[in-house]
């Protein structure tokens, strides 16, 4: 049986609708398989990949090419935004 780990998922702007039902604000704890990647979690949550523009792990940008390669660690915060801007 696969081991699982807990991460913090944060979804903003129009992606907030994909948060688990028990979420408070824009974030929730999420049980994911050990070594899950950002790409795998994005797929599991059903997030449209074209809307996952800004993907941060613990505040650090994860380039599209690295999202399927780098395993997340227990306690990591995965935050995702669609294309947005401000001033």
């Amino acid at each position: 049986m696969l081991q699982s780990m807990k991460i913090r998922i944060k979804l903003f702007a129009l992606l907030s609708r994909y948060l688990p039902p028990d979420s408070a604000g824009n974030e929730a704890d999420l049980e994911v398989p050990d070594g899950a990647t950002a790409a795998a979690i994005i797929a599991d949550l059903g997030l449209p990949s074209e809307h996952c523009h800004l993907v941060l792990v613990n505040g650090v940008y994860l380039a599209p090419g690295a999202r399927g390669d780098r395993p997340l660690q227990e306690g990591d915060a995965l935050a995702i935004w669609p294309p947005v801007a401000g001033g």
Partner: protein
Amino acid sequence: MAWTRKILRVDLSNGTCGSEPLNMDWAFKYLGQRGLASKYLVEETDPKVDPLSPDNKMIFATGPLTATEAPTGGRWSVITKGPLTGAIACSNSGGFFGAELKNAGWDMIIFEGKSPKPVYLSIDNDNAELLDAGDLWGRSVWETEDKIRESRGNPFVRVACIGRAGENGVLFAGVINDKDRAAGRSGVGAVMGSKNLKAVVVRGTVGVKVDNPNAFKKAANAARKVLAENAVTGEGLPTYGTQVMMNIVNETGALPTRNAGDSQFDGASKISGEAMLEKRAGDGKPHTVSTKGCYGCPIVCGRVSQMDPEHFSVAGKPRYHGESGGLEYEAAWAFGAATGIDDLESLQYANMICNEHGMDPISLGSTIAAAMDLYEQGVITDRDTGGVALKFGSAEALVTIVEQTAKGEGFGKEIGQGSRRLCEKYGKPELSMSVKGQELPAYDPRGIQGMGLTYATSNRGACHLRSYTVASEVLGIPEKTDPLTTDGKAGMVKALQDATAAVDSTGTCIFTTFALTLDDIAPEVDAACEGDWSADKMVEVGERIWNLERKYNLNAGFTAADDTLPKRILKDAAKTGPASGKVNDLGKMLPEYYQLRGWTANGVPSNETLQRLAL
């Protein structure tokens, strides 16, 4: 065409208004608005002039694309020597006033001298006259606009005016048009107040002609299509507004918090764009009620909010219970994270007071944050503040001090002088988060290295809108770069500064550049105006404007020593987040920046550079 080729010169000392032709030689070199008005200011004033003296001039300027069909073609600017900084000031505003002024047949208005009594300028196409403003002086922005509209009896007039802050010499007072759009920064409203000029009301029905109507329509439609199809300008900004930045910048570890003592705020989510759409505890309604765009704008980034009428700041004050502009990201940060306050309603109230009385929320919030730092460190006490407990996180203190500042009462009089003067007075200049006297905006240069160089070299004092490296370093527009490295940032800052100076001179909005490049904008200018306007020429014009502003500041007494950042940003490392352990490495970027600019090691444009730019 596109320029009206006419300037309105208003001599406030003598009470006269006169028309004169636009200097077209200068127009071909400086385009319009920011660039062209800066050229007039440089030519007509002594850079060492006291900004609040009659010898300083103040220019209301449109661009060639203002009031045309170019998307976002409603921008206008106020250009003068700024009293907050002593540097050249150019504050850009949207709304509808600028387009009305251009439609009345004027490229710009140059105000000189000082009226012996309060007056306002009334423009009806060609006819301009100064009228008595005795019954307007002492009134708010909102009352002033309502009174003028009532007296003109024409619902189509547009008004730009100052509130009590501009009258009272608040050094970060702004000029407000259409009740909640602001030429906000650097204290241009204080200059207007110093001239006893309360307002400008304009009705324009002349219209604007473009040089090649068919080519212009094609270029404007092409630009509009790019804006509509772009994910940011077509969906992100219209749907979420600028306040979507709050959570992003906090997560990135670059949200200056409690006077930049920290760079992440644990209350950020409570004051974010997402929070503005949630039902609040008080009356069960969301904060944001609708959106609002400026003249000719397809993006519509502006938010409109309505406060909880039972909130302590507005209970029993019905004039604050209606819909009002805001919150935008910078104001929410300045009154929120910078002061450690997570009460969204209080931030909106403070923002409304800024609209009502004409103040820059960035400088006001940051100055209050500096005062809170002084108070928490015991440098100032209740005796200094008149009993206001200026603790970080206190919404009650924020509300009281914002009101006092607008009215020029109590400790608000000291706040109204800005953070540099406040902190110098109490012997702690290092607690002012400012560059050249102007307060830093909402991006911590320890977590976004390019913004450190942006702030340090901005010609109007610290400003994010002179080279918004956040687009690349944080948002990935047009491509993502690492916010924690200094590599490549000198070149990025220079390129953005030059391009921004060009766009700020067109009459269109800098927000278009989230989607458009100069390759999209230059065809609009080229079709609208006489002359050849390629993207390369726009860059050249932008670089010329940047160097013109730089020369003015050097002649005003600034030196390379002023191209720096607050000690806290350079010496005290960020404590949390991705930038943990980092300071801003300005010293690694500045020499390269000077070199790329063609300036000496002392930050002075070389003769070769000046000749190349025909300066």
